Structure formats: C-alpha cells, structure tokens
C-alpha cells in the first residue's frame, strides 16, 4: 500500500472507533434507566465488538497467533465466570473484573515500555509519563481489587496499621521520585521498583477500610479501572481507549459519591479514617442487659396474623444465608392473606452498590416492591410489623443519637416507628461498625435468633399452619 492508502485506511479505522465511542455513550446512558438498561448493555457490547474488530485491521499488528489464543482463553473464562456466578458473589466478581482491567492496563504500559526501551527506540517524555501513570494506576487497581476480593470472600480481615499515613506518604514520595528518575533514565530496574511501590500502595489503600465501606471501595476501584484504561490511550495515542476509559471513570466516580452520601461521609473519611470502632467502646452489656425479648417462629406467625402492612429490611446477612428465595416464600404466604409486603432498601446494605436489589430480583421479587430509604421512612408509622433480616448498622439508631458513634450521621432505615419489630439474626454480635444496636433492646423489638434461612423456613411453615 502506498502512503495515501495507508492514511485513508487509518482514517477509516478512526471512523469505526468513533462509532464505537458513540455506542458506548448511548450504552451507558441506557444503563441508567430501567426501561433501556438491557438495550444499553447490548449497545455497549456492540461498541466493544466493533472496536475490537477494527483494531485487528490496524497495520501495527503483525502477528495474530498470540491474539487468537488470548481472546480464546479470555472468552472461555469470561463466559464461565458470568454464567456460574451466584448473585451473592457479585461483589467478588465485580472486584475481580476491576482488578483484571487494571492489570491489563498495567501490562500494556509495561509491554510498550520494555518493547521500546530494549530496541533503543525513542520514547518521548509525554509517552513516558503516560506509561508511568498507566503502570501505576493499573497496578494500584489490581492490588486494591485483589484485597477487596479477599475481604469480600472473608480471607482478609480489616486491619488498623499504626503509622499508616506516614507509610503512605513515604510511598507516594517514593513513587514521585521513581517516576521522575524514569523520565530521565528509563531503565527496567526503576520501572520494577515503581511497580513494587504501586503494589504496596494498592494493598495498603484497601487493607484498613472497614467491611461496611466496601460499596464505596468497589465503586472507586471501578472508576480507577476506567482511568487506567484511559491512560493507556495516552500511551498509544488512541482516542477510543481515552474516551471509553474516562466514561467508565466518570460513572464509577458518580457511584462512589452516591455511596458516600448514603453514609453521610466524605470520600476522604472513608479512605483514611479506617475502622475507628475500637476508639469508642460502648459496652454492649449496658445496652442489652435484661432488655432483650426473644421470640419464636410460632409467636411471629401469630403476630403476622391479621396485619396489613409488613416491611422487610434485608441486609448482608440475607445474602450470606442465601435466604432471598425464602424471603419471597414468606412474602407470598403473607400476600395470600391480603398483607401488603414491601422491602426497605438501604443504599449501602450489602457489599456493593445495589446489592440487595439484585439479590431480591434473583428471587423474582418485583422491583416496585423495593422502596428507597427516604420514602419508606416517611411512612413507617403505617407499618405493622418490620422484619429485619441480617441487617444491623443500617437500622442502628445510634447513627442519629450518638454523635461519637462511628456511624454518626449515617441515614438509617428508621424502623423504630413501626408498631412491632422482629429481628432475625444469629446472635447479638455487632455489625461491621463494631457497635451494639439499641434497637434490639427496644420495647417493641422481638429477637428471633437463628440462621436467616432456617428461621425463615420455620416462619413460613408456622404461617402456613395457621
């Protein structure tokens, strides 16, 4: 091909990329409305297919063997993950995918770096800077996501590391110094040192963050994985990477702020305050002693007989117990008796934004029944029985009453105004925030101790027996 042809061919590729960028924009927009969400996702996938196929025509690609193997393996694993995953495991899957996206971006930056430095090709300063950013953000995303996965899976515990701010400051200075050195003398050893520092930062950034803050972390890692992809676009001067990456970055950031707002905390507070529960120990005996009323399935079934309005408040415990189908069974039983059953959903209930909605949808619970926190709080007086399943901190009145509490100021689902409250819970052990819950000791609260699933099965049987 002569020069002119090469140029017009490359324009053609760029037009195809533009098309896929437009599809990504429509896709993301579609994903924000219930009616258009499925189409939005498909448009996004179409955009991705167009971008990928277009790229294969790029004349810089000289060998296809590795590409075919790579796409084959990746597709297979991707399909298996997507089909096998249970909705309870969605936070882990999203964390893993975020990590893979970050890792891919870091590897691209490293491939470009080693490829250019070992052949003595010149790397311009802007490209070098882009490579450094890409490698850094990608690595932080990868290790942050791995840590988040470990925490979600219960493999890694929350840890308060003494002197963490100082360590992080030193590491950040180290990264800046190493980055500057790399721009001046791009050598392999300095690059590896930078990757090492980025790894430590990624680990240390998620390690101290409490389990209750997981929705924020997941959303933030989502934003970072987009940003990482965007920086590889700077490395390769490729607009589609920049556009798609920054769209994802923006959407991740928006979700991050929605989650922060739902906890009435700033992002900085979530990231740097760590788990402070140990600092203000409220003795759980003072709260609970002699004030806990235990109940049984039969008693709750009697209570539910003849009521009009039942509110179910699910929390992460519901997900752990895999009890979403049993909740639906209970609701079906009650609805047969002309009880109106609704669900109060706290925005940060669970381990990821929207976690409860997905779980309940899996059990065929229509989403009109899922009521947002602010709406349900205004009509709590009309609720005859509120059933709390595996939720704790999101219904803890200390958020409103104790300004020293780690959850102070967090909006809660204020079930205390309901006529009777039934709490299904394994024990009186505290939630992620590590504090006792005075709701459990309230006069109108009955504690139904047991595994969420087992308790619900018993309850459904008892309701049917009546």
């Amino acid at each position, binding site marked *: 091909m002569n020069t002119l042809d090469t140029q017009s061919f490359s324009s053609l590729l760029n037009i195809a990329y533009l098309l896929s960028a437009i599809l990504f924009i429509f896709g993301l927009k579609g994903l924000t409305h219930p009616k258009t969400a*499925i189409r939005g996702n498909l448009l996004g996938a179409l*955009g991705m297919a167009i971008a990928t196929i277009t790229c294969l025509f790029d004349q*810089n690609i000289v060998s296809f063997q590795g590409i075919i193997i790579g796409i084959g393996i990746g597709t297979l694993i991707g399909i298996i993950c997507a089909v096998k995953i249970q909705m309870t495991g969605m936070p882990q899957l999203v964390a893993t995918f975020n990590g893979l996206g970050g890792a891919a971006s870091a590897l691209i930056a490293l491939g470009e770096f080693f490829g250019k430095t070992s*052949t003595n090709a010149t790397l311009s300063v802007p490209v070098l800077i882009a490579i450094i950013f890409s490698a850094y953000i990608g690595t932080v995303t990868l290790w942050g996501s791995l840590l988040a996965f470990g925490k979600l899976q219960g493999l890694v515990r929350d840890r308060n590391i003494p002197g963490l701010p100082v360590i992080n400051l030193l590491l950040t200075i180290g990264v800046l110094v190493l980055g500057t050195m790399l721009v001046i003398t791009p050598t392999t050893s300095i690059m590896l040192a930078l990757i090492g520092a980025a790894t430590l930062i990624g680990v240390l950034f998620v390690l101290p963050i409490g389990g209750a803050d997981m929705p924020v972390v997941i959303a933030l890692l989502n934003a970072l994985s987009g940003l990482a992809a965007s920086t590889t676009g700077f490395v390769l*001067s490729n607009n589609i990477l920049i556009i798609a990456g920054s769209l994802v970055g923006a959407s991740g950031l928006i979700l991050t702020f929605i989650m922060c707002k739902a906890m009435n905390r700033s992002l900085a507070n979530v990231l740097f305050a760590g788990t402070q529960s140990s600092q203000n120990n409220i003795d759980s005996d003072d709260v609970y002693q002699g004030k806990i009323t235990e109940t049984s399935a039969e008693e709750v079934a009697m209570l539910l007989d003849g009521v009009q309005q039942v509110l179910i408040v699910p929390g992460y415990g519901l997900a752990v117990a895999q009890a979403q189908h049993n909740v639906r069974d209970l609701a079906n039983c009650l609805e047969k008796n002309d009880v109106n059953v609704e669900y109060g959903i706290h925005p940060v209930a669970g381990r990821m934004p929207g976690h409860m909605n997905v779980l309940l949808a899996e059990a065929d619970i229509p989403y009109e029944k899922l009521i947002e926190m602010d709406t349900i709080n205004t009509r709590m007086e009309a609720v005859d029985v509120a059933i709390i399943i595996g939720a704790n901190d999101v219904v803890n009145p200390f958020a409103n009453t104790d300004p020293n509490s780690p959850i102070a100021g967090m909006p809660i689902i204020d079930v205390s105004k309901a006529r009777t409250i039934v709490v299904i819970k394994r024990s009186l052990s505290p939630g992620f925030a590590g504090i006792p819950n005075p709701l459990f000791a309230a006069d109108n609260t009955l504690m139904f101790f047991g595994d969420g699933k087992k308790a619900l099965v018993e309850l459904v049987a008892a309701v049917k027996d009546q």
Partner: protein
Amino acid sequence: MEILIASFTVFVLSVFIGFEIIQKVPPTLHTPLMSGSNAISGIAIIGALLVSGGNYTPWSNYLGIAAVIMATINLVGGFLVTHRMLSMFKKRK
C-alpha cells in the same frame, strides 16, 4: 507535546460527557451500571491487541497476550453477567 494536548482534550471532554449522561441512577441499577461500565473498561483490549501483535520484543508480546486474556475476561464476563442480571429484573414485569 501536541499529541498529548489533543489526547488530554479528548479525555477532559469525555469525563464531562460521562458526568452528564449518568445523572440520576435508580438504586436498582447501581450494580448493573457498575458491572456494565466495568465491561466497557475492557476496552483495554485495544491496547492489549496492539502490544501483543505489534512489532516488539517477544517479551513485550507475551505481556500483551496476558493483557489480551485479562481484558477479554473483563469484557466478555462483564457484558454477559450484566445481561443476566438485567434479564432477572425484567422477568416479572
């Protein structure tokens, strides 16, 4: 340097578009939006393809192939699982 400015322009404008199109998201869609947008971050596959099939050293190509595998898992798995989730929402309408 000029290329950098051009790239940066595209970057800033895209971020603005992102903020504009994702204004209000109902909580039901928080998870699908996250996994769907996460799948779009699989766009890293473009970079991975260019590095894995490009005229570099073998080692760079290997890194590229690893990146292709990861980005493909990210995008194939991401779009599929999002579709699965959204279909669940639709079932009972």
